[in-house]
């Protein structure tokens, strides 16, 4: 998504990219990144948690006004309400690429 943000920014629309895997975004070279420590699938907050969803949106949009130079990475202070072990975000079946990698790994051992 970082490359998409670069294209849109280059075409005259300022972008902020919310992201968990911010080191990738930093490596690609992004105008404005808001890093967030939320599980995949629910970046803004849990189902029905309107307060967190609104706060994350507000914090992401604030970067349009506070970021002064390309490459800005702002670490948002939100803490997910569950421990990772209790947080379910994986699909019911492994994605095709993960299934392929696991198969290759098993073939090697």
């Amino acid at each position: 998504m970082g490359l998409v943000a670069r294209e849109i920014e280059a075409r005259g629309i300022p972008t902020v990219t919310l992201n968990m895997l911010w080191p990738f975004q930093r490596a690609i070279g992004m105008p404005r990144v808001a890093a967030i420590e939320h599980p995949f699938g629910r970046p803004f907050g849990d189902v029905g948690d309107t307060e967190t969803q609104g706060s994350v949106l507000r914090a992401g949009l604030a970067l349009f006004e506070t970021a002064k130079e390309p490459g800005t990475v702002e670490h948002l202070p939100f803490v997910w309400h569950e421990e990772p072990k209790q947080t379910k975000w994986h699909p019911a079946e492994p994605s095709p690429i993960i299934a392929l990698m696991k198969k290759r790994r098993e073939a090697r051992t």
Partner: protein
Amino acid sequence: MNNTLREVDPWRFAGSFLERILSGGIPDEPNHPPIPWTPVTKPLAQSKVALLSTSGLSMKGDTPFDMEFERQNPTRGDSSWRRLRADATAAEIDANHLHIDTGYVERDLNVALPVDRLRELVAEGVVGASAPSHYSIMGFQGNDSSDLVEKSAPEIAEAMRSEEVDLALLTPV
């Protein structure tokens, strides 16, 4: 201007398996062309905002993102894009993404595409307006992002410009 008071741990929810296979792909030193930069010229309270999600969202009735293509080609992903009505509800949206549990966004769109929260910020005067359209792509592109970047991204930018979007917030899966 990096705020390092408390760094986000990118692997906290990803887990050690994904960390092992993904972290090797991050170069130690940034190695990218100059970063594009379009200055923000208006206050947020006067700006029209569009959202772009990578969650593989489409309006019901529209062509859904093609998951069969990725099942047949695990190192590739559907590179197309979809327009979403800004007043869409979860019941009107399909979510197709093989790398996450899409059940959450199917119950509450705002977990990944905060359309209702954006409308509330407009009502409060924090944001000038919501664009009439939001957008989605399907974030997983495997080892070939070229169609997404060279075809879909410019088309999305053009669609945003035709609706006079001032600011685009990209939201992850």
